[in-house]
Every structure is written in structure tokens, then in C-alpha cells.
């Protein structure tokens, strides 16, 4: 028979997995919208956004409750702290995805830019890093954390390069300025989504090892 506290923590874990899954689907939608693939109804996306917000509030509520009523310690304490941090990060990912979807509507003639400058690859990597982060939490796999940091670095490098290229293109072809600018913003958002994923990975590291790390430092160590 699970104790009262264990039941609450189990509930919490389930909600984090759920909200992570929802965020993952939002990122997929964002990617689709940028790459001009068929997307879901605007209504559906909005619904998911609301769900994410609600779950974020619920996570806060449960964590507050557990703090006040159960006095968690050690790994339980780290879990609760991490849960609150991760929830915020996931909620931002959801927000950013929504922004990207909105932006995409104004990126006309983007296909050329996209194919010219490797945007597809970046987008796929962002999808991948999101999925990896969810998997990392579910399995509590420390090795995946390294992967996530590496992926983030790759996305950063690639998006910086792509941005430079698009700026160059905009300079030479003024017709591409509007699409180009929006695409650059979208790329920035993708970049930040990847960042939030690494923040989540840091929280997972904290849960496992009771140590705080910064992903930049980790890579430097390597």
C-alpha cells in the first residue's frame, strides 16, 4: 500500500508526463506550420495550449500542498522542487510553439529560404530534443542528459548559421525581408525551445544527483 505522500508524488509524476506530452505535440505543430506541412485546426492547438496552462497551475497546486502538508525531504523534496521548475519550462515551450504557429502564417515564399538554408534539419532536431527530454524524465536516464545538451548545442550552432545566411539573403534580395525576418524570429524561438529543454534536463540532473549544473559548463568540461 503506497503511503499518502507516495500517492501524491505518483499523481504529480503522471501530470508532468502528460504536460510534457502535450508540449511535445505543440512543438510538432509548430514545426509543421514552419515547414508548410498540413497542420491541425487552430481550435485544437488553442485547446492544447489551455490544457497545458491548466496542468501547470495544477502542478503548482500539488507542489504547494505537498510542501505545506507533507514536509518532503531528500529525493522527494528534490522532485517537488524540480517539478515546479520543469512545469514552468514546459509551459514556456508551449507558449513559444504558439508564437511560432502564429508567425508561420506571415512567412510567405518561405520555401526557398527554408530549403536553401537547412531549416528543415533544425526543425527536426527541435522536435527530437523535445521528445528526448520527455523520454529522459520518464526513464530518469542520466545519459540522455548529455545527449540533450549536445543536441542543444547543435541547434544553436545551426540556427546561428542559418540566421546569418538569411540576413545575407535579405541584404541582397529585399523581397525576402518580411519572410526572412519572421523566419529569423521563428528560428530564435526554436533556439529557446531547445534551451528550455536543457533547463529541464538540468532539473532532472538535480533530481538524480542533488547537484545543480549549468549546461554550458557541462559542455565546457567535456
Amino acid at each position, binding site marked *: *500500500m503506497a503511503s*499518502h505522500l507516495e500517492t501524491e508524488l505518483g499523481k504529480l509524476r503522471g501530470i508532468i508526463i502528460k504536460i510534457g506530452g502535450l508540449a511535445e505535440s505543440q512543438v510538432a505543430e509548430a514545426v509543421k506550420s514552419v515547414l508548410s506541412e498540413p497542420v491541425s485546426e487552430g481550435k485544437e492547438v488553442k485547446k492544447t495550449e489551455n490544457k497545458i496552462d491548466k496542468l501547470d497551475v495544477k502542478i503548482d497546486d500539488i507542489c*504547494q*500542498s505537498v510542501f*505545506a*502538508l*507533507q*514536509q518532503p525531504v531528500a529525493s522527494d523534496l528534490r522532485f517537488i522542487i524540480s517539478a515546479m521548475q520543469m512545469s514552468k519550462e514546459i509551459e514556456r515551450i508551449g507558449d513559444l510553439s504558439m508564437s511560432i504557429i502564429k508567425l508561420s502564417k506571415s512567412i510567405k515564399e518561405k520555401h526557398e529560404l527554408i530549403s536553401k538554408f537547412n531549416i528543415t534539419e533544425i526543425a527536426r532536431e527541435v522536435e527530437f530534443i523535445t521528445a528526448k527530454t520527455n523520454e529522459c524524465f520518464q526513464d530518469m536516464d542520466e545519459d540522455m542528459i548529455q545527449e540533450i545538451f549536445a543536441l542543444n548545442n547543435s541547434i544553436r550552432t545551426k540556427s546561428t548559421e542559418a540566421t546569418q545566411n538569411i540576413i545575407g539573403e535579405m541584404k541582397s534580395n529585399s523581397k525576402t525581408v518580411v519572410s526572412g525576418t519572421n523566419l529569423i524570429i521563428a528560428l530564435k524561438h526554436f533556439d529557446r525551445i531547445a534551451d528550455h529543454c536543457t533547463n529541464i534536463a538540468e532539473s532532472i540532473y538535480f533530481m538524480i544527483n542533488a547537484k545543480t549544473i549549468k549546461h554550458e559548463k557541462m559542455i565546457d568540461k567535456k
Partner: protein
Amino acid sequence: MHKIESQNVNFYYGENQALHDISLSMKENTVTALIGPSGCGKSTYLRLLNRMNDLIDDTKMTGSIHIDGTDIYGNSTNVDNLRKNVGMVFQKPNPFPKTIFENVAYGLRVNGITDKKEIEERVVTTIEQVALWDEVKDKLKKSAFELSGGQQQRLCIARALAIKPSILLMDEPTSALDPISTSKIEELIYELKNKYTIVIVTHNMQQAGRVSDNTAFFYMGNLIEYDKTKSIFTKPAKKQTEDYITGRFG
């Protein structure tokens, strides 16, 4: 109509007023914690619910207390029957100097149950219910005093539950126990909630947080605040409550 309803209860020990105008109602199958500093009246209030204060000379009560809609201080109430329905567990474990089996059987015997089989069945079931069976199944005929403090207290809970009360009153049931026994009993309370209405007096606030659905904060014989436990511990309405909860006084 709630399971336990008190209205405008005042209580006096001789000239000294111990409770002031307490109105409090508790729903069925909930755990209500009564918290507050020493001498605030929470134990006094608890003992009104099964009329244990009747045992003290020179006391007076005004106001009313209804259980299942019946005024328990009314003329038609038989006190022994009331106590059969409202069980009590005390601060210091107090099993009788009898065998483990007889401790639990005592309540059945004094309530008219004589059938040997029935007694045996109820004793076993109740001991299982308090998660004590595995530890005592081979020594039912041994003295209850051979058990540890935590086991004795669980035995006392079994003793109270054997006569199938609907309400269980607990007066600081774990204050004399070590942390592991305490947490075992807290888990038990959490489980018993489904079948019983429980009122628990505790001077350990964290315990109130862990086990109860609702919490009543008493101070100097007054009911300061009564709300869902979660609210009391996250956003108490009264400053006094907040000061007590955060340890700034009491």
C-alpha cells in the same frame, strides 16, 4: 446535516470557562484535526463528544452537540450506547493488563456479544484492520504489555474499533511514540478515513497537515479558524492562525 454538529458550546470547570461559544461541524468520513497551544481547550472539546467530561465533578456545559442528528446531552441519550458509537484512543497507550486477545474482546463482551465464534472473528478482523495481525498472530494469549509502545497503541485502536463505532476520537495518539510508530499510525488513520469519521487532537502541526482533511485552530478556549487543512496551511485567514502555524507563538 453533518455527522457531528456543535452549536454555541460553552464549557466550565467550576468557575473557570474552558470553552467559549464553539460552533463546529464535521462531515462523515473526514479526518478533522484540532490544533492549538497547550491548554487551549482542544482536548476538553474532544471529550465532550463522547461525554467523557461527565466523569469530572463540578463541570457545566451549555449549547448543544448533535451526532447523527441526536442531541447527545439530551435526556433520551444512553451514555454507554453513545460511547459504543464514539470510540476513543488516548495519549498514552493504555491496553488493559490482559492478553492481546482479551484486550480487543473486552469491548465486545461488555456490549453484550457472547458468541465465541463471533468474538474471535471480530477480534481477528480488527487486529488485521490496524495492520497488527502479522506481528501478534502467534501471541494472542500473551500479555499486551509485552508489545512495544507503537504496537500497544495500535492494539488500543483495534480495541476501540472492535465494537464498530462510526466515530473515532483520538487524543494526541502518537505523542508518546517514536517516529516510525507515529508514521505507521498516521498511515492507518489515512486508511481508516474511508469507514470512520475521525477527530484527532494533536499538538504536532505537521501531523495535522499529514493526516487531516479539515483543521480547527483553538486558542484559549476559542475557535479561531476552521477550514480545509490545505487552506489553513497555505493561506490561513486569521493572523493568529498564521502566527501559530509559522511558530511565531505557542
